[in-house]
């Protein structure tokens, strides 16, 4: 049966509406893309809790810092590429260095932004954010998880970055599925290889697991929604169990979740490993599914790399 498809950004918007009821000090900020990021829902229902900063991402982040210093709970929102890239120094030196309670939401993450092309496809944001001391980095896998993750970072004291995509993607989790910041979720048990994935690649991993199963290969799928702090305990356990690691994310292969896991494993439990992501390249215009295929972000790619990895290991 086809799974229901909902854009992750809808989950963000829904969480903000809940927070507007619960948090007196909530302030939602946007940089002129409120309709795209769904912060427009706050603008419509709680105009007093919304500030449109205009096309000024650095000023938005700095103002968010000041709002946090004044006791507010700001959610600064825009496309991931302009938030993590353009305002990086502001995020580093003003928000992280001061441990300010600012939440940063990078919308339109990944190559699946599609037709807008490379300028708008955020493929470096996770790398940029996770190297910052004190930053929490979350990459949810569907609309439900985006909603839960948004609520969770509101409770987490300090700087947090959440990134989510534009397109409607299959709902992989359930409304009642648990979500704890920093705790990876096992989506499918398996014994031959473990796939650590996040974002839209979790669904691709589950699809790949079905194909592999037909060939007698048992793929474990773990949703590493929190890239920082990394759930090293769960990662180590799954790696010990399978002895063979794949990672997949809608991001540059360099610097993202796969890199974070490699950094951990190479120093603690080195095993054969393959990181699936965009290989040192910009994206381009196209339909989301065309781009995902061209840049190797599909269940087929995971299937192929799983088989390669087992071959390398001599099975």
């Amino acid at each position: 049966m086809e799974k229901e498809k909902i854009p992750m950004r809808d989950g963000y918007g829904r969480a903000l509406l809940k927070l507007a009821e619960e948090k007196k000090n909530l302030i939602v900020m946007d940089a002129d893309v409120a309709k795209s990021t769904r912060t427009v829902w706050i603008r419509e229902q709680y105009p007093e809790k919304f500030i449109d900063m205009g096309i000024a991402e650095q000023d938005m982040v700095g103002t968010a810092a000041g709002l946090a210093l004044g006791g507010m709970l700001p959610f600064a929102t825009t496309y991931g590429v302009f938030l993590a890239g353009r305002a990086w120094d502001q995020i580093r030196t003003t928000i992280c260095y001061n441990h300010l309670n600012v939440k940063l939401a990078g919308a339109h993450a990944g190559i699946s932004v599609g037709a807008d092309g490379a300028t708008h496809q955020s493929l470096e944001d996770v790398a940029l954010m996770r190297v910052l001391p004190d930053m929490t980095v979350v990459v949810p896998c569907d609309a439900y998880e985006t909603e839960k993750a948004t609520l969770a970072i509101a409770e987490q004291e300090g700087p947090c970055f959440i990134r989510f995509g534009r397109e409607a993607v299959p709902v992989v989790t359930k409304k009642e599925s648990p979500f704890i910041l920093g705790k990876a979720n096992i989506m499918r048990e398996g014994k031959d290889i473990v796939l650590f994935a996040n974002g839209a690649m979790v669904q691709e991993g589950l699809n790949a697991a079905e194909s592999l199963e037909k060939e007698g290969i048992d793929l474990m799928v773990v949703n590493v929604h929190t890239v920082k702090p990394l759930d090293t305990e769960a990662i180590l356990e799954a790696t010990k169990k399978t002895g063979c690691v794949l990672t997949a994310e809608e991001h540059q292969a360099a610097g993202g979740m796969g890199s974070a896991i490699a950094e951990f494993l190479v120093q603690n439990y080195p095993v054969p490993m393959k990181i699936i992501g965009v290989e040192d390249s910009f994206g381009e215009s196209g339909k989301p599914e065309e781009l995902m295929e061209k840049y190797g972000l599909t269940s087929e790619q995971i299937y192929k790399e799983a088989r390669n990895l087992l071959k390398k290991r001599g099975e």
Partner: protein
Amino acid sequence: MNRDELEEVCRIVRTDIIEMIYHAGSGHPGGSLSAVELLAGLYFGGILKIDPKNPKWEERDYFILSKGHVAPVLYSVLARKGFFPVEELKTLRKMGSILQGHPHMSRTPGLDCSGGSLGQGLSIANGIALSCKMQKKGNRIYCLMGDGELQEGQIWEAVMTAAQHRLDNLCAIVDYNHIQLDGNLEEIKNLGDLTEKWADFGWNVLEINGHDIGEVLLAYQSAQMQKEKPTVIIANTVKGKGVSFMENDCNWHGNAPDNEQYKRAVSEIRREEV
């Protein structure tokens, strides 16, 4: 404090700046010396509502040092005001010191924010001012910027934000000393008519002699009366003010005096007393 007392505070602060930077072996004397009256007026002229015994007091006024490299002038004023012992000033820029080379708010009592990456302070001040408005609090927010710093684009984004939200609880100050690290500001990237620029952006603009403590206090008081608009004080100053061989010389933007220069500088500042 009367005018004579405030001028004496300025001499003490100038001496502190020279001593701190001399002992540290590095630092930024030029822009620290140009901002002495601006900070002495705020902290000792009865302008800022603060409590040195309770630096995080919720009712306090905020001061954001956007040009973070002039930390020595702020550290001196905070120490002389009683936020931390004056002896700490000697530890500037040393390992383990509460006085980092550029301000770090979590280390130094009395700092409302960190600073050092230029162009960011006004946005932060705006955010605090907005938060006070939203919570219907009467705190005032002050933000000191360098003139060279106005070459950063983010400042002008923030200038528009403050006007857009009618932040009359905000007072920005530009230390207009015309010198930046590499040379004369006019020869590097000219700011044009600053007064006209800020006014065009919807601000209340006051232009003063930034070394006349009387004018400084009047400007702060006038800003407090302003409604519906943020105020900027364009303070005409002299980089390195008070030490003849440092004045108007970009080489003293970020250099420490040697022993002989240190003695000369201190005696020049102190000689003014007689």
